[in-house]
């Protein structure tokens, strides 16, 4: 094999601490290498053209590019090889940026290490073989997990694009966090007027199948052919016949069930529909508060239900759906502020969260849009808002900015003034972050037109005094301590990853960061993709996002799915295992260990042998290291290839 080596400067990213010319010079001595050069930007058009020219001029049949991580540009350079008429797998990359130039300043050591990495890549390349993809059919339907605004948008866009959509929502209704909001920034238009019609579209769309009150149990398969089992949780109501008339809710004598939709500000009936615009509008029994289910008494709902839908014997049910792609849109949870002892830690009833306040402001909320102190029901005049509660705070392990709290606080000060004209809002903030379109103008309006008093500084403590709360904090612009008497304190709680997000990530085989937010395929180039083919992300499951960003990402994820499904057949990754039939002794160990069931037993001239089903094999290579005979080899990562790399580094 004639190998060409291209050592990239990456501007000064690599050249700054690696002598790329020296690496190229050293490479010329490596076995198989017939050509080596350094190049300014290997990935640029002139860079790629240079590689193609060199392939033709020097009749190269293998290429090593020493540059950034293969996770970034391996596909780019593989395409370059294809343009030059070579097989895309006759290519290796040496990562001399992330693994060398960016982690040390010692130019001599870096240059030496870079040459080593090139030697390893070249040694492996000598053992590479051309590989060819196979085609397999795709199931052109998509599952969207999570029915918040991002999931709704993704589902509608896919459905309008002609795909069959399965929307799975863990609550009894879709709508997510947005459904709980009264108004949205920066337009102060009503949240349900924006979201409501979309929810109805989901319910009525012929291409969308909605599984509410359901959770993902297990995910099997691969891009184009996923099998997902879904747990439909017992609602104790037959949703096929329930009409959502609400008679059961009206007659239910139990009034103490937790009202999660109203953020526990109120109580609700044991059988309930979370809010009037719920989709699907179906009743569910909260088993913890139902006297029939707890003590086998009552049963009033069953007696009054005109459609006889109540079924106390209902059990969780597992169903299976087959889809070709999955969009995760599981959203976020609010930070539990009660860890902040200095803010009362959940002790003072008049210290509430922003979402509780939002429910209070909402005409469909528990107080019908009247702002009332939870302690005595009085209308507050002095409302203090505290920002960055569970954001930008290392001490509670939330060092990141949640992004939308500055804006919703500004909105809430405006709404407070609208609801109670003689009220005064005070906002303790660290910095105002309002980078969206018309966002900064909006926060300024809150201050200038609506007279919200913005105080830059952290609050050190809140304590009760009479029927008021005293908020003590610093005003860092004045350089003084301040104390504000508050009737009501609203904490702008930040966002954290949804409960159970990491469990779902494991089922989907996608990665997540230290905080449980899902990781995108690449922070710049693959913002809605994951590293698992066929699984996409939308909304705040990837990191805190406001509504426009969630909607945009929902649409982007849908477009990726539609793009994927624009092909009838997908090309399989040929980096799969193959069995050398002569070596195989039919012990079946590979069949046992394969996590995907991709290896089956076959009969070969009366002998038991293993055989790999190419489209199911995911290329992990567990079988290869299991096989006692070395008969199963993962192509592109064979024993010989890995050991060639070992020998290339260790031979001195």
């Amino acid at each position, binding site marked *: 094999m004639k190998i060409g080596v291209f050592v990239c400067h990456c501007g000064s990213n690599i050249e700054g601490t690696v002598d790329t010319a020296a690496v190229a010079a050293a490479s010329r001595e490596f076995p198989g290498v017939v050509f080596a050069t350094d190049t300014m930007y290997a990935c640029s058009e002139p860079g790629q053209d240079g590689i193609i020219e060199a392939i033709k001029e020097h009749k190269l049949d293998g290429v090593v590019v020493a540059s950034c991580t*293969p996770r970034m540009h391996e596909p780019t350079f593989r395409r370059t090889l294809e343009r030059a008429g070579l097989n895309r797998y006759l290519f290796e990359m040496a990562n001399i940026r992330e693994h060398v130039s960016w*982690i040390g300043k010692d130019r001599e050591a870096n240059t030496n290490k870079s040459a080593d990495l090139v030697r390893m890549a070249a040694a492996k390349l000598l053992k590479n073989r051309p590989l060819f993809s196979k085609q397999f059919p795709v199931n052109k339907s998509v599952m969207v997990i999570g029915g918040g605004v991002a999931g709704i948008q993704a589902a509608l866009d896919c459905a309008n694009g002609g795909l069959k959509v399965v929307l799975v929502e863990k609550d009894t209704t879709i709508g997510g966090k947005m459904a709980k909001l009264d108004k949205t920034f920066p337009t102060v238009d009503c949240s349900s007027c924006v979201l409501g019609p979309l929810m109805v579209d989901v319910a009525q769309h012929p291409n969308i199948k909605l599984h509410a009150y359901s959770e993902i149990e297990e995910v099997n398969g691969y891009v184009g052919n996923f099998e997902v089992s879904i747990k439909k949780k017992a609602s104790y109501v037959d949703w096929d016949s329930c009409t959502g008339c609400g008679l059961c809710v009206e007659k239910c004598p139990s009034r103490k069930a937790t009202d999660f939709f109203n953020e526990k500000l109120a109580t609700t009936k044991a059988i309930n529909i979370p809010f009037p615009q719920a989709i699907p509008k179906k009743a569910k029994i909260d088993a913890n508060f139902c006297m029939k289910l707890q003590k086998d008494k009552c049963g009033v709902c069953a007696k009054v239900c005109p459609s006889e839908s109540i079924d106390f014997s209902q059990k969780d049910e597992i169903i299976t759906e087959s889809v070709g792609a999955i969009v995760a849109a599981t959203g976020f949870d609010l930070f539990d502020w009660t860890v902040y002892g200095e803010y009362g830690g959940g002790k003072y009833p008049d210290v509430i969260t922003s979402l509780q306040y939002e429910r209070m402001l909402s005409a469909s909320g528990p107080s019908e849009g009247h702002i009332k102190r939870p302690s005595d029901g009085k209308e507050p005049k002095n409302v203090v808002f505290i920002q960055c509660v569970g954001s930008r705070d290392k001490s509670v392990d939330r060092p990141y900015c949640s992004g939308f709290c500055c804006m919703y606080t500004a909105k809430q000060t405006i709404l407070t003034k609208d609801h109670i004209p003689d009220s005064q809002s005070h906002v303790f903030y660290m910095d105002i972050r309002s980078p969206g379109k018309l966002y900064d103008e909006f926060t300024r309006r809150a201050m200038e037109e609506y007279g919200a008093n913005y105080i830059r500084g952290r609050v050190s403590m809140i304590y009760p005094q009479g029927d008021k709360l005293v908020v003590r904090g610093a005003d860092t612009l004045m350089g003084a301590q301040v104390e504000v008497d508050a009737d009501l304190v609203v904490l702008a709680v930040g966002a954290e990853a949804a409960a159970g997000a990491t469990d779902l990530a494991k089922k989907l085989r996608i990665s997540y960061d230290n905080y449980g937010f899902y990781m995108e395929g690449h922070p710049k180039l693959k913002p809605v993709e994951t*590293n698992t083919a066929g699984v996409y992300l939308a909304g705040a499951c990837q990191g805190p996002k406001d509504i426009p960003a969630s909607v945009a990402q929902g649409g982007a994820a849908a477009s990726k799915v539609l793009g994927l499904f624009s092909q009838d057949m997908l090309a399989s990754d040929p980096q799969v295992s193959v069995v050398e039939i002569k070596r195989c002794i039919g012990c079946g160990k590979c069949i046992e260990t394969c996590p995907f069931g991709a290896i089956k037993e076959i009969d070969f001239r009366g002998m038991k042998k293993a055989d790999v089903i190419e489209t199911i094999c995911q290329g*992990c*290579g567990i079988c290869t*290291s299991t096989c006692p005979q070395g008969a199963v080899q993962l192509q592109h990562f064979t024993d010989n290839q*890995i050991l060639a790399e070992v020998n290339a580094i260790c031979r001195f």
Partner: protein
Amino acid sequence: MPILEGKELRIVGFLCNWCSYGGADTAGVGRFKQPTDLRVIKVPCSGRIDPLFIVKTLMAGADGVLVSGCHPRDCHYSEGNYYARRRLEMLKRFLPIMGIDPKRFDYTWVSASEGQRWQEVVTKFTEQIHELGAAPKIAGAEAEETLKLMEAAL
């Protein structure tokens, strides 16, 4: 190229593509300074690592071998790292029998987002190998024999 005399030792890292290789990339992107001794060999999954690779690497003259994969329960291939953990733990116990200091080998878990953790792992392991110094070289016939023994045992 030979290692830099007096500066570096020969350390080989086997990293899974999805977590630890990504974690090493994240460390690079974050410009987290690390010793230069370790050279990374990318494998699709820690479950792809045959314990014999590690023995062969040490026999071939490496002074240390580090394996890193996804945290248990967090494998891109569902359970590859469980296989890896079992095999590598076995290997660790075999090394002294083969006359290899088990401190020359370690395995760890680093996720793609844990750049800082990768920096710590590399730094600590490199220091550990430097404390042990260069590995005693095992010559031709003896190495062959040890390898055969190992192959039979694993």
